[in-house]
């Protein structure tokens, strides 16, 4: 039986209202990262997706998601250098719509967390749209946004420190917080680093007045 658009919409809002009323310690999160063939959402595509679940501040290594994808429009040289995935490695892998279907199932209704997540979301939404699937409606938090908010509210932040624009990439921040990471990385290990970064923020936020998921979504809006 088909549910009407209105029913779906009401259901969505009810679900989301419940979700955002949760405290940040009790909310469910899926922390994600993607590897791309490039940064141009029109030309480039997703090579791999990694995701890891968190229940509040707990990172659950029992709930991991990692898939390589056979990109429709090939891979360029630059991205191979960055993430080390070669065309031959992805040759036998499933196509993007199969993986994204599994991926959205994995995420369920969790809050999606990522570093500079608008980029990942743009690619995911593009691919979902191309496959003619309903759009990805989960709430989204950008750890970079949370970082900036934390820095601003603790008075430590300066966008142009010592005259230089501050680096805000994942590894710079991981280093700042003493999060251990190894040399080689992929979508999953980067999602893990992002999760640990997010974990740090979760431990600080209540002290800064951010207690509900609703507040978190505000300060971490991509």
């Amino acid at each position, binding site marked *: 039986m088909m549910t009407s658009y209105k029913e779906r919409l009401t259901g969505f809002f009810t679900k989301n209202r419940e979700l955002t009323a949760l405290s940040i310690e009790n909310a469910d999160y899926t922390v994600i990262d993607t590897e791309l063939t490039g940064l141009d959402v029109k030309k480039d595509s997703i090579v791999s997706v990694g995701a*890891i679940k968190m229940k509040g*501040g*707990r990172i659950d*290594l029992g709930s991991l998601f990692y898939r390589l994808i056979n990109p429709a429009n090939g891979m360029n040289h630059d991205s191979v250098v960055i993430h080390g995935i070669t065309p031959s490695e992805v040759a036998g892998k499933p196509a993007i719509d199969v993986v994204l279907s599994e991926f959205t199932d994995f995420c369920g209704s969790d809050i999606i967390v990522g570093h500079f997540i608008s980029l990942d979301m743009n690619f995911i939404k593009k691919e979902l749209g191309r496959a003619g699937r309903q759009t990805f409606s989960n709430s989204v938090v950008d750890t970079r946004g949370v970082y900036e908010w934390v820095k601003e509210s603790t008075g430590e932040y300066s966008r142009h420190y010592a005259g230089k624009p501050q680096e805000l990439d994942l590894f710079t921040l991981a280093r700042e917080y*003493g999060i251990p990471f190894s040399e080689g990385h*992929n979508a999953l*290990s980067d999602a893990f680093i992002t999760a*640990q970064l997010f*974990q740090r923020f979760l431990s600080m936020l209540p002290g800064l007045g951010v207690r509900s998921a609703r507040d978190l979504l505000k300060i971490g809006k991509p």
Partner: protein
Amino acid sequence: MTIEEVIEFLSKIQPFQELDSAALRSIAGGVIVEFYPKDTMILQQDGPPSDFLRIIKKGGVKVFIKPETDEEVIIDYRSEGDSFGLLSLIGGDRSRANVQTVEDTICYLVNKETIQRLLDSNAAFSEYFLKSFLNKYIDKTFHEMHNKSLLYGGGDKLLFTTPVGELASKNVATAPHEISIKDAAGVMSSRGISSLVLMDSEGLPSGIVTDRDLRDKVVSKGRDISESIQSIMSVPLMKVEARDYCFEALLKMLRNNIHHLLVVDEGRLKGIITNHDLMMLQGTSPISIVREIETQQTVEGLIPVSRKINRIVNLLLKEGAKASNITRIISEVNDRLVRKIIEIAERKFGEPPVPYCWIVFGSEGRKEQTFKTDQDNAIIYADIKTAKDERKVEGYFTDFSAFVRDSLVLCGFPHCPAGYMASNPKWRQPLKTWKDYFSKWINNPTPEALLFSLIFFDFRVVHGEVKLAADLRKYLETLLKGQNVFFARMAGVILGNRPPLGFFKSFIVEKSGEHKDALNLKLRGIGPIVDMARLFALEKGVRETSTLERLHALNDKHPIVMELGEEIEQAFEFITLLRIHHQIKQIEASVEPDNFINPSNLSNLERRTLKESFQLIMKVQDAIADLYRAGMVTQ
């Protein structure tokens, strides 16, 4: 990758390294990662039980308890690779202690089902936890731990507020790292220091050498002392900033299993800090306990301090102290405690009506106490003229000695089952009665008289009029002159106690009963040596009461000691140390300490040394038989 990192980490720590890779992968696949900022309370004493075994991936925690009335007492610090929460996880009842992070900490959480499965299926895994974790934390032991950690009471605050720079010894000896081992040792011994910092050609510290290095890497390995000091120095040097708090230094030492840290201030060497410095800060050193005893004014105040005395043994052992030094320090501290109690008694009952002295004998008299031993004490008071005075004195010392006895019990020294205590009127006598006792025992050495002689002749003064005891000692010496029959009887006691070695040099152990397969180390190992040293000392008029001091003093006086003295000393040290180790393990396991050792639990080296010690005792016994058999003493 994510899971691989966890596997890699687990494969390096106990007891997970016992597991195969499939098991590790299955554990890692279920791990939950948590982060706790500094000062987060992870588990709460008497709160809900732990829901996971937490393994510290990064950071550190302190495990402590907070008795209702007292300040918090730290049981342990745990750092990377250590875990916590096992017992309450398995027990499922309540948390035993508080666990709080002392720095930002990441933990890997392993759930109960997984741990239970591992404990059930993997012997090595469960054995590790049984040994290192469960044993320590079963409830009964918990009280022991509690007492033990009282050592840290009050001190741990200092640990968090004192900068390393304040504690570090400022005079750091340095030497160029080109010098030889011999020259380095020379510098250390001439300056009386236990560590030396080696500097490179640019004047920067490049390594450190400690007494321990000389012992472990040179002497025991037979290394050539003309080699460069660089071949044995410890590198890299671990440093700590002068402004860092002491607990950071402690964590660093614990984490790296080292005892020295360089203290630097803006890159420049400012001093050195040792674990001993930190222990002193925490009030665990014998010196600080003595100081604490001295400041007490009541028996109630002495009780908690007295609990710490046993624990010194543990610390001294860890510092590598020799058995004889441990027992000497313990006896010194115990003496102070006894003196303090007597002072309190004198205040309570008023000035004693006559001069008197408080004497101790047995192991206390020989300064060979380890853990709290039975009371062995008596009172000698000055001779009295009239019967009226006699009654007054008797009345005074009756109450006085009962009070001291009961106070000692409160401080952990149980009654002497045989009643060798000043509270027993027989052992609370004027000097002339003591003289009568002694002369009766010597002139008519019945088995009972011999027993009394073995016990009482090791007397020494702890408090009071020293002259009374000195008089008695001098009297004893005169009495013993030429008493060959008496000495022959004493020798007979020694010969009757052959070490438990069979014909084929195998240990003879108990065949049945509570101590099946074990042997009594005190009775069969320490006893004979103590008895030998006493016999020789009494015969030669040596006044020392401790076994080692007696042997030293006899070095040029007694033919047997001249020949075998050094070996006897070593055997005595070894057996005593073995006994202390055995008892400390029992105390940690909350078992009443005893003297029964099962030789099959010893290492090969220990077994061999014990056999050699027993053989030596037999050899000395044979010599004693030759020398004393006919009731004759060669002069």
